Every structure is written in C-alpha cells, then in structure tokens.
C-alpha cells in the first residue's frame, strides 16, 4: 500500500460530501488551487491506520461524469486523465440513501473508470423516515464493492468507512469489465492506438468529451472529431443511451436491496413543505427574502461596531504608546504611521467580513439560497440574468472574487458573462469600511427612521441597494447589446432544509476570513509603506524648504501649532502631495481635494486601501491631542480652506460614497474576470464602464447636494 494514498470524495451535490470531508479531516485541511483553474481545492488529512495518512480531496458535487457547467468540468478533467497530479488512488463515492438510484448512477460511472471505489451510504436516517430500508450487505455484494454506512453530519460510521477503505486499498480492485452500453471495438482500438493505451471507458469518455478535456491539444481534438465523423458517433445519443442502460442495471440491483415500506398516499407534511409554503409564496417569499437581507445589514452595521471600536482604539493606543516610548526616528515613524496604521486599516473591518460571510454561508447551508434562485429566476431573466445569478450577486456583497468564481455553476455562457460583468457593482466588504467612515461622518448617529432603525443603518442599506440596482440596470443594457442566442437551463435540485452544521460553518468562515485578511492585507501593507515613503519625502530639498517656509511665514507660532502647520506643509510638498495636486483639477468637480486625490490613486489597485491611506495621511498631520486619535475624528476636524466649514459635509461624503460604490478599484477582480473569461477584453470593458459610471454619478451627486 502507498504511504499516503490520495482519496477523492465524489458525490451528488447535497449528498453530504462536505460534511463527510469535515468529519474525516476536522481542522487538518488546507485550500489550494487546481492546476490551471482558480477553483478552491480542499485537501485534508485522514489517518487510515498507524503510519498511513490518506490525503482526502474534496471535489465539487456532480450528477454524472458528463459536465454541464464549468465547475463540473474540474472533476472530469481529473478523472479522465490518469496522468493528472490530482488523479486519485481511490474514490469514496458519497451517496444519499434516500435517493439511491440517482446517486448510484454516478457511482457506477466512477467505478467503470477503473478507480478503486468505496460506496459511503449517507442519510440512512432520512431514508428510513420515508420508509426506505436498505440491505447494504446485499448491495455491496451486487455492486462488488465495499459499502460503509455513515452519518456524515454526526460523524458516525467513520471506523467502518476506514475498514472499507483499507480493504479496498489492499486488494486488487475488480472493476467491471463489461460496460452496460454497446460500442464499436474497432473505434476503441483506434482511440487507444492514437492516444495511448487505456481502458475502454476512458477511451469512450475522451472521445465524447474531448472538447472539455484540457489534456488534449487542438491537434488531438481535431483527431477525435475525425474519428467521430468516421464512425458516425453522436456523443449526446451515446451518453443518453448509456444513462438509460445504467439505470436499467441499477434498477434491478436497487429493487433487490431496497425495501419500501408503503407510506400513506398523502404523506405527512414535512418541515420543508411547510417552510416552502411561506418562502416560495408570491408575496411572503419576497417579503422574507428582503427581510433577511435587511436584518443582515442592520446586524453587520450594529453588531460589528463594538469589536471594531475596540480594534480602532486599540490600534490608535498602540501607535501613541510606541511613539511615546520609542526614541524618535524615521524608522519608528515608518512603523507607526506607515505599517501599523496600514494594518489597522485591514484588521478593523474583519468583524464586518466575518458577519457577512457568516450570513452568506448560513443561507447556503440551510438550503434557503436555492429557494431564492427559484423565486428570482423569472425576474432575473428579464434583465439578462438567471436565477443562479443571485448567488454571485449576494456573494458579491462579501467579495467579488469568489462571487465571480461561483458563476461557474451557470450553464449558459451569455448569462454567465453578464453576471461576471455586473457582479463587481455589488458593494463588497472592502467598500464597507469606506462606507462606515463616510456614513459616520455625514449621517447623524442618534437619528432613527420610524424610531427603530438607525439612520446610519438605513443609509448603508441604501448604498447596497444602489449597487444592486446599478448591477441589474447594467445587466439589462448588456443583454440588449449581446446578441448571442443561447439556451440557458435551470434544472436543479431544491434540497430539503437542513439545520446549519456549526463546525462546517466555522471552518468555512475561518478559511475565507483568513484568505481575505492575508490576500488583502499583503497589498494594503505594501501600499501603506510606499505611501508613507511618498508622503514623507519630496523632490530635492522640498521638505526642508516647506519647514523653512512655515517658520518664516509664522514667526510667532510655537509648540504643537507650529508642528502641525509644518507637517501639513510637508505633506503638500511631498511626492504624494505632488501626485494629488496633479489629479486635483480632474476631481475638483466631484468635490475632492488633493488629499483625497492621493487616496484615489493608492486605492486604484485595491479600494480597501482608502481608509488606510486616510489614516496615514491624517497621521502625518502631526501631533494630535487625545480626542483626535482615530481617523474618523481627524477627518471630522478637517476644514475646507475655501469655505471655512467642515471639509466632510454631506455633498462630499455622498459623492465619495457613490464614487466608491461604482468604481472598479480592484486588481484581484480584474484578474479573476480575465481568468474566467480568458480574454483581456472583458476586464478592460469592466474597468472603463465602471470608472466612467463612478465619475459621472459622483459628479451629479456633488453638484446636486453642494
């Protein structure tokens, strides 16, 4: 036996694959990327017996080995290619016992690929509740594989599964020699001759799916096309025939191993039926959906505020403490004003991201999300989208990168492209700290709507609605512009409602938050340091001149006032100040000055840098008294030199919010769009249309509110 066998977890969506993965591996899992694609690859470790540790690979859920969407292609690209680095030594096929026949279809295909396979029968309790009793010993004999009964959610039956896996690894696996479908042996011989020796089923799979398989180059694909022509091959027909004959075989097996206790004609109403009465209702369905979203935003804004205040004050305190205790030098300034201010800008919005990810994974986990797709499909289709676009759009509220990747489940290319193009308009969590700071500056804290909803929460909700509205509108315009006539389909399972599995949610929360903090954190810290250097140094001896200038112009000033004036003058004379000044004429109509110009520049690659930049710029404003330690307070104290009134009034605040709501300031998103569309055309269009939209809208808002 191999020291560390690779075991793939394969199964239908909702069969309990991810639960089993978490039960087997616990926290011993890491995310990675499949070679060539960006989909998350989850790998975990599982102890088989003393000294043997299996590597468990969690593959996306599929219904058959014939892919219908991009995420399903990932699985088949591994299984079709024995040379693939992720090609498993064996497979555990997880099957939902309450829907055995459909689940066994996939099992029989995997087994016929010659991969040693163990069948894990899950959800036996659900099956028994609907009167289904399965004789798993007989099933194992009929299918000629090891069968283990498991309860993936509760982690029961894992020892039995371990035994079955060990047994299968030790024995020579007997795959089925005869396939349940007819094909020409000459055709198979020709494939093997041209493309290397393999089993018949792999050969047939290559022939019918070669266009979706990355292992073949263009020349080889043309070769397959020629073979298809020569033998009058029709992949559609073959796959349909194969499916029907597989079911015929499985029917007999399942009928012999399964005992259905008759239930009354009108079965008792299950919880799922009762909940669906409300959630799929033509009025209450939408009401509940909007209500959930509204609660989500109120919660994110109010609950997260407490840990955020703590972090914000903690960072300010640490900065001050370091400045007071360490000897004054440029290095200390880099540490405090550059590095810590920058990191603080990232860490402070972790609580909000955690809450958002929590809500989204709860909606996915419980099965509610597919109800949302169901009630939204017709509405979304009107705008060139698809019921399945709802998930990317809602996930876009957390981060556009995973959201754009989740469009892979959308079968139609046109629907998918439109969803990718408009998803970045959804207000992602990186915009949240910007909104938070600006709303707190211009919307009074104590005011409420109808006495219950805080006006700040309502403003935030409004911004999210605005992003959604703009996404829908853009989708509609794209639908008119893109003429491609392509069929999209919406055949999907409505799973029964499940209670959330807290372990599962916590693990995915941990993984996504960690990825976010480190990915975004790297960029923010790097930009913070560059920015600090640019703001601390100027061309030639501009910095000394600035100090000299202040001193000669204000001979009477002393102490803190003088320090402040000098620091402000220095910032203006620095490289960063010059950049801001160059930009100022272009952004003046939006109400922005050169300081905001610096922030716009630095946040061009990643919008979350805005708050960090603000912290850095306003930290450089010199010594501050105790009350002015946080960014927000410093921004509030800023005076517009032209009007003498506070700089951050409603007009500027909302103009900035609108700008950041629509602008495409995220390199990662553009890179993801490129990877998913395989063309620079679409990220380029995205960048241009969103930036134009942001500029024009911010201009209108500022001119109206001024």
């Amino acid at each position: 036996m191999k020291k560390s066998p690779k075991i793939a977890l394969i199964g239908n969506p909702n069969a309990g694959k991810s639960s089993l993965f978490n039960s087997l591996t616990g926290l011993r899992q890491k995310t990675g990327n499949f070679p060539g694609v960006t989909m998350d690859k989850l790998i975990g470790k599982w102890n088989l017996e003393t000294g043997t540790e299996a590597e468990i690979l969690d593959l996306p859920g599929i219904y058959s080995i014939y892919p219908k969407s991009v995420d399903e292609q990932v699985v088949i690209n591994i299984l079709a290619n024995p040379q693939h680095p992720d090609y498993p030594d064996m497979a555990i096929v997880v099957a939902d016992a309450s829907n055995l026949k459909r689940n066994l279809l996939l099992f029989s295909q995997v087994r016929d690929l010659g991969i040693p396979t163990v069948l894990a029968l899950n959800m036996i309790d659900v099956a028994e509740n609907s009167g289904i009793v399965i004789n798993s010993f007989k099933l194992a004999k009929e299918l000629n594989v090891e069968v283990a009964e498991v309860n993936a959610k509760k982690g029961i039956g894992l020892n039995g599964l371990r035994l079955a896996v060990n047994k299968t690894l030790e024995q020579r696996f007997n795959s089925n020699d005869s396939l349940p479908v007819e094909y020409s042996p000459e055709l198979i011989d020709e494939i093997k001759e041209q493309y290397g020796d393999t089993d018949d089923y792999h050969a047939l799979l290559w022939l019918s799916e070669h266009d979706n398989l990355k292992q073949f180059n263009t020349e080889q694909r043309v070769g397959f096309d020629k073979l298809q022509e020569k033998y009058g091959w029709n992949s559609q027909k073959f796959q349909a025939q194969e499916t029907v004959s597989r079911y015929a075989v499985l029917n007999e097996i399942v009928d012999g191993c399964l005992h259905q206790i008759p239930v009354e004609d009108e079965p008792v109403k299950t919880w799922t039926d009762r909940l669906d009465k409300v959630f799929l209702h033509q009025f209450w369905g939408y009401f509940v959906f909007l209500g959930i979203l509204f609660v989500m935003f109120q919660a994110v804004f109010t609950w997260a505020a407490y840990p955020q205040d703590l972090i914000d004050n903690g960072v300010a305190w640490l900065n001050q403490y370091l400045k007071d205790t360490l000897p004054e030098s440029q290095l200390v300034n880099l540490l405090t004003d550059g590095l810590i201010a920058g990191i603080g800008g990232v860490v402070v919005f972790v609580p909000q991201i955690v809450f958002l990810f929590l809500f989204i994974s709860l909606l996915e986990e419980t099965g509610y999300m597919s109800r949302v797709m169901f009630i939204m499909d017709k509405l979304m289709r009107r705008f060139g989208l698809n019921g399945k676009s709802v998930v990317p759009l809602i996930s876009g509220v957390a981060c556009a990168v995973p959201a754009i990747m989740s469009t892979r489940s959308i079968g139609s290319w046109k629907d998918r492209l439109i969803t990718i193009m408009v998803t970045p308009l959804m207000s992602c969590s990186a915009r949240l700290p910007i909104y938070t700071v600006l709303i707190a500056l211009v919307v009074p804290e104590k005011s409420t709507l109808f006495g219950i909803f805080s006006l700040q929460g309502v403003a935030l909700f409004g911004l999210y609605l605005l992003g959604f509205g703009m996404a829908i509108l853009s989708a509609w315009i794209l639908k008119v512009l893109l003429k491609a006539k392509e069929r999209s389909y919406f055949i999907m399972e409505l799973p029964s409602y499940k209670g959330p599995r807290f372990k599962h949610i916590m693990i995915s929360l941990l993984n996504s938050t960690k990825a976010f903090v480190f990915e975004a954190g790297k960029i923010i810290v790097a930009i913070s340091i560059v920015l600090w250097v640019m703001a601390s140094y100027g061309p030639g001896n501009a910095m000394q001149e600035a100090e000299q200038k202040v001193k000669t112009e204000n001979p009477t000033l002393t102490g803190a006032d003088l320090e402040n004036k000098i620091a402000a003058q220095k910032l203006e004379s620095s490289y960063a100040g010059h950049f801001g000044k160059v930009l100022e004429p272009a952004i003046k109509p939006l109400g922005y000055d050169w300081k905001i110009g610096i922030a716009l520049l630095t946040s061009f690659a990643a919008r979350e840098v805005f708050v960090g930049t603000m912290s850095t710029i306003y930290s450089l404003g010199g010594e501050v008294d105790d009350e002015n330690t946080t960014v927000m307070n410093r921004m509030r104290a800023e005076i517009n030199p032209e009007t003498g009134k506070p700089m951050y009034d409603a007009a500027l605040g909302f103009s900035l919010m609108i700008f950041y709501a629509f602008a495409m300031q995220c390199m990662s998103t553009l890179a993801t769009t490129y990877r998913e569309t395989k063309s620079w055309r679409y990220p380029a269009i995205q960048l241009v249309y969103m930036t134009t939209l942001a500029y024009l809208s911010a201009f209108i808002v500022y001119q109206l509110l001024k």
Partner: protein
Amino acid sequence: MRTVADLKIGEKGVIVSFSDELLSLKLLEMGCLPGTQVTMTHIAPFGDPIAVKVSGYVLSMRKDEASTIVVA
C-alpha cells in the same frame, strides 16, 4: 400531448418520453426516467419556474424545460 408543464399543483403524471434530446440527458441524470412518477409541487410567483417531486426529491426547472417532458 400532455407535458409536465401542464400539471396543476398536486397533480401527478408518469413520464413517457422527452421531446428535446439535449435536455433529456440532463433530465435522465437527475432521475427523470421514463416510467417514473412526477408530482407538481410548486409554481414560482410569476408562474415560472416550477418544481416537481420526482424519485424522492424536489427538482426545479423552467416551464419551457418542463414542456419537453411528455407525461401520461
């Protein structure tokens, strides 16, 4: 020809055949086999999509997709 799209809520039918070859593979894989009973369970707010109970679970599809499944 009566299709799944014609069923009313709670009404049952038995699948006879498919009129769209491209969709039939997907439907077969999802457990819609000739001879299987389908029950209409939900119709979405604006009349589309619909959901049926088939092979022990609930499957949703659009109305035009449902109209490719011939039932008796």
